[in-house]
């Protein structure tokens, strides 16, 4: 086998032009997959990072049935005190959970005493919210000296477009009017502490108040938590934690359910399209490798019929001729893959050093493309397998040639 490998590599290096042409085509395919894959994965993770770290959290826990009617923000589907205590104990015991933030979410009317509009409110504990969505602070425009305490009781963060629509400015007083779950209407006055920018642009109507104010406005004796957002130590633990929590809430009478960000955000479908694009590019790569190796090995067999006749005449068994051509195809795939991966990773490294900045909604995102080792392995294995597969037919043909016919070929 060692000798065959020597001969195969020698044939490839001596037929420089042919090898270079084919290898460059395969390498180009690998480069495209590595660079495109790196960009796409990085874009996706940045976008997901923006969503989960500025608003949603990685996972959310709600009372059963809440997500189905999430647009109405019902206040009767909340976690009871006992359920909240149980969930909090559970989350504190999970090493994968970095932080969590209980929220009361409800709809209200906001008024500047002259005009009124509607607003979607999240009543939060600022310290917990800051730890759970650590990038949220970047979405706040205003003087926030301490991110841990971005909101005090008596203050409100108002979304940008409502500020404009109601001609408000920081420090102004507004009135919030809301109906609680019993149907009782109540109002409180709050001072505007700062402006929030929506992730997806100025269309959002999401405001933030302190949980004490939410409790007072809705006349709750105890905070009736609608949602618990969870931030994980590592994002790649998402599925593992999701499965663990789902198991814990799996009892038939369980009144709690857990969802990942993907199940709650419309961006998940964009992320799936990105995944699909990466798959399409991979299929294109497979086609390039398949056609290139098939083409070059077929050409090689036709060009070398006389050589095949000679090596068969000197006593080379058909199996060794088959192996020789298979090794040549495989070696070409291997060399091209290594070159493609090295160039692809170098391009990603260059992109990382130069930093690609762009704006996503209201957020400035710096794209730092990288590709997981698993993806690189996947590409390498596929190209290797395709090289073997595509090289088999020409190699088999070579091994089946009758030496007397091959020697007589002109």
């Amino acid at each position, binding site marked *: 086998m060692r000798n065959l490998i020597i001969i195969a590599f020698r044939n490839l290096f*001596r037929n420089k032009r042919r090898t270079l042409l084919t290898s460059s085509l395969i390498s180009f395919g690998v480069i495209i997959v590595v660079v495109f894959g790196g960009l796409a994965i990085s874009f996706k993770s940045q976008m997901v990072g923006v969503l989960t770290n500025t608003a949603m959290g990685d996972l959310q826990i709600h009372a059963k049935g809440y997500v189905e009617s999430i647009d109405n923000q019902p206040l009767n589907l909340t976690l009871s005190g006992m359920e909240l205590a149980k969930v909090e104990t559970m989350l504190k015991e999970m090493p994968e959970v970095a932080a969590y933030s209980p929220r009361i979410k409800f709809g209200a009317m906001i008024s500047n005493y002259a005009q009124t509009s509607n607003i979607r409110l999240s009543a939060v504990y600022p310290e917990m919210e800051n730890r759970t969505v650590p990038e949220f602070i970047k979405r706040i425009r205003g003087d926030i000296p301490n991110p841990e305490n971005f909101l005090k009781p008596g203050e409100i963060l108002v979304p940008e477009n409502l500020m404009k629509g109601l001609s408000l400015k920081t420090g102004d007083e507004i009135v919030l009017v809301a109906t609680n779950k019993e149907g009782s209407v109540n109002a409180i006055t709050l001072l505007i502490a700062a402006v929030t920018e929506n992730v997806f642009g100025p269309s959002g109507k999401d405001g933030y108040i302190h949980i004490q104010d939410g409790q007072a406005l809705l006349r709750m004796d105890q905070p009736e938590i609608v949602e618990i957002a969870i931030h994980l130590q590592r994002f790649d633990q998402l599925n593992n934690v999701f499965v663990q929590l789902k198991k814990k809430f799996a009892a038939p009478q369980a009144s709690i359910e857990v969802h990942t960000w993907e199940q709650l955000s419309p961006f998940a479908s964009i992320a799936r399209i990105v995944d699909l694009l990466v798959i399409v590019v991979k299929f294109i790569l497979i086609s390039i490798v398949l056609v290139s190796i098939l083409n070059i090995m077929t050409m090689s067999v036709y060009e070398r019929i006389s050589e095949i006749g*000679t090596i068969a005449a000197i006593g*080379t068994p058909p199996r060794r001729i088959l192996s020789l051509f298979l090794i040549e195809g495989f070696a070409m795939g291997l060399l091209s893959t290594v070159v493609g991966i090295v160039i692809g990773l170098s391009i990603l490294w260059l992109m990382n050093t130069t930093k690609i900045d762009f704006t996503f909604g209201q957020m400035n995102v710096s794209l730092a493309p990288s590709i997981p080792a698993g993806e690189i392995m996947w590409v390498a294995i596929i190209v290797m397998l395709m090289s073997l597969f595509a090289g088999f037919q020409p190699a088999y043909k070579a091994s089946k040639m009758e030496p007397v016919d091959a020697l007589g070929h002109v």
Partner: protein
Amino acid sequence: MDHEFIGNGASMSLIELENVTKVYQTGEVPVRALKGISLQLEKKSFVSFIGPSGSGKSTLLNLIGVLDKPTQGNILVNGTDVNKLDRAEAAAFRGRTIGFVFQNFNLIPVLTVYENVEYPLLMLGRLPLKERHSRVMQLLEKVGMSDQKEKYPNRISGGQKQRVAVARALVTNPQIVLADEPTANLDHVTAFKIINIMHEMTNEFGTTFIFSTHDPKIVGEAEILHTLEDGTIVNTEYRKAG
């Protein structure tokens, strides 16, 4: 000549053909390339087949070289009934027993002179590197090509190519070397040199050289001369070469 075909290795001759016929089906008309040839060739002999184009010389060499099978008849090479060998067995047999020199040299263009001679040893995987090197160099020196060993075939002359081909045929130490029109693409002086080298190798290594030619000036070098016409041996001459 009546000859009892034994086929069990008990025969004294290196090569025995009994009533060998080869028919090619080209289109609708069958072509009888060989018509019931019987002959015996001894070890360490220097044999030539002569005859016009189409007389069956190449077909006969292909059959003796186990590159092809007869339509009828039996062939015994070194005691082996080669008709019974399958493709892989035939290849292994050729690797052990036979070397080939071709009219067009059939050197591999992307390999150097040294690598071309080394190629059969690499392919058959017989010798470790050191012994392989020593064997290749020994043969290159014998054929006077050791100083050209780094050159590629397109950088050497036709005669030099054929010398390399002779070295390649001998590198596996075969008992038989078959050369189909080895001097057809060479001038007379070079052709004589090649035949002389082959003759020297017969004497030195005890190899049986069998070559075909239609060059009447070259045939004088052979010890045994079989003349073929229209698929049959019409004359056999035994003589002292040179």
